[in-house]
């Protein structure tokens, strides 16, 4: 946080003999950012035009409407550059653009970043095949598979990022809550979901109890991811020899009283999703994600409760 940084600099000024390396880390912002993620990080449909709208992305955007992570860092360090690697449709686990693949592309660049933002998971859930059986989540990846894929990406980054670099991992949205927001938005949202096959695991699921099970599975993913993040940050898994700082926005689930304290516990409403697919965040939603990302960034500031619109659906 900002205050912590200033405080640290003050201490350094009074202990001159050990200042050099500490000042370098305490007073310096990243000069290069990177991100790994999916269509949310591509600003997909954010301005109600059905394509990537990266300028409205919460992480890499340049629009003042969003005040992205990149923009906020640029205000602090004007010469900062970024390497966005997010890809539409990417999963944490599956396909050719998963987290590990994107991480390897980040590492392939000549200049490694000091700060990487990671947001995956919605496609891992939405791409799972529907099941007519009693458990609608049976075809979703096991949580251990999800974290296994996360570990592969982390190992790639650990191999190339400079000592002390930051990796900020954002929790995945509760897609069942996005469904609720879409239903509240317009009667044609179910029609476009059907024509365009939008997250059919939840949008084709008429039973609210079964959609709740999918939401609970998302909570399980987010908790497993947070536990893995903690293991990386503390190096209790023995893999973080580069001293990476690994943080997440996840604090706990909606069911456990942590509503709107992270992206994964946010109750989406109709005003935060676009009118094209009724699913991706619009400009207002992207701005909220940027705020949440910044609050949970070690260089950032603010409180989550001020980020998310808490109006009812």
């Amino acid at each position, binding site marked *: 946080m900002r205050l912590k940084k200033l405080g640290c600099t003050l201490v350094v000024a009074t202990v001159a003999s050990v200042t050099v390396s500490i000042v370098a880390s305490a007073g310096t912002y990243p000069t290069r950012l990177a991100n790994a993620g999916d269509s949310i990080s591509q600003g997909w449909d954010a301005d109600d035009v059905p394509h990537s709208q990266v300028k409205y992305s919460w992480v890499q955007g340049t629009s003042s409407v969003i005040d992205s992570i990149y923009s906020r860092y640029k205000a602090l360090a004007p010469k900062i550059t970024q390497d966005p690697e997010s890809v539409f*449709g990417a999963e944490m686990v*599956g*396909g050719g653009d998963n987290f590990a693949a994107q991480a390897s592309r980040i590492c392939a660049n000549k200049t490694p970043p000091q700060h990487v933002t990671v947001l995956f998971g919605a496609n891992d859930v939405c791409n799972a095949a529907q099941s007519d059986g009693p458990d609608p989540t049976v075809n979703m990846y096991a949580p251990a598979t*999800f974290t296994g894929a996360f570990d592969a990406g982390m190992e790639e980054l650990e191999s190339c990022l400079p000592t002390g670099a930051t990796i900020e991992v954002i929790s995945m949205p509760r897609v069942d809550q996005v469904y609720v927001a879409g239903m509240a938005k317009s009667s044609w949202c179910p029609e476009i979901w059907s*024509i*365009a096959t939008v997250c059919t695991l939840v949008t084709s699921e008429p039973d609210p109890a079964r959609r709740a099970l999918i939401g609970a599975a998302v909570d399980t993913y987010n908790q497993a991811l947070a536990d893995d993040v903690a293991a990386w940050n503390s190096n209790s898994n023995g893999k973080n020899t580069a001293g990476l700082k690994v943080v997440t926005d996840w604090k706990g689930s909606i069911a456990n009283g942590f509503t709107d304290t992270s992206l994964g516990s946010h109750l989406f409403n109709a005003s935060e999703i676009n009118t094209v697919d009724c699913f991706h965040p619009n400009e207002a939603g992207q701005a909220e994600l940027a705020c949440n990302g910044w609050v949970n960034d070690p260089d950032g500031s603010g409180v989550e409760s001020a980020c998310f619109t808490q109006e009812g659906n």
Partner: protein
Amino acid sequence: MKTSRNAFVVSALLALAACASTSLVGCSGSAEDSASSSGSALSSALSAQVLHAVPNAVASDYHFTTQTFRLFGTTPNADGGGFATFADKSNWSTRHVAVGDWLSRNYQVASITKSGVTLRSATGTTSLKSGKETTINALYHRFDTASSYQGKNVWTVDGKTFADIHTQFGAGATADERTGTGPTAAIGTMTTVVLTSVDTDGVLAHAGLQEGSVLVALNGTQLHKGDLDTVATALTKSGTTVSLTVSEHGAQHTVTYNVD
């Protein structure tokens, strides 16, 4: 493209691997070692290793590739089914495989448990735990490696080999057509072609398309359900770039095929 984990499109998944084929010369257990000439029928030694054959193949159609796979994990279900997710460590592209599916032409998935996977080959079985890596001498047919995914929705395709696949197996898919009014003027009336079945041997599977993939346009021209062979034929034209517009999660995006 939509990834239905019920549809284990083995050929497409093999194509995803972007294999860097090893030279047959000096390759341990190479196909050439097992055949008297490149255009010959398979020797008995090679035939023994090819557990999943392509009809009418000759020895030179096969090659070995040293590949390291990491088992990301397994998602078994109560009836002994489920799937496992392997990643090719060279580019991290994944394959979802069920019991009976093929990791390569010489390795088959024999069992999937909560803790790992057992692979079967002509020489025995290999067990692999989740999170661990294994290096195998994988055998592929040239059809399996006729395309490679470059990332960010760009593919490289061997047009000549795709033409051979087209001749032998055709486009290999069926489709339905859906039309509806989009929610905004930016979308207008929307027509999509949804693949209802995909033959793992056909051209479209080798282009990474799966059951559930939603196609919109080929090189900017609106597609209809009767156009699947047109798509397949376009992917056989060496020296061209093919743009396939697909719809996913409510938005259209372009997949580019560079046809060599």
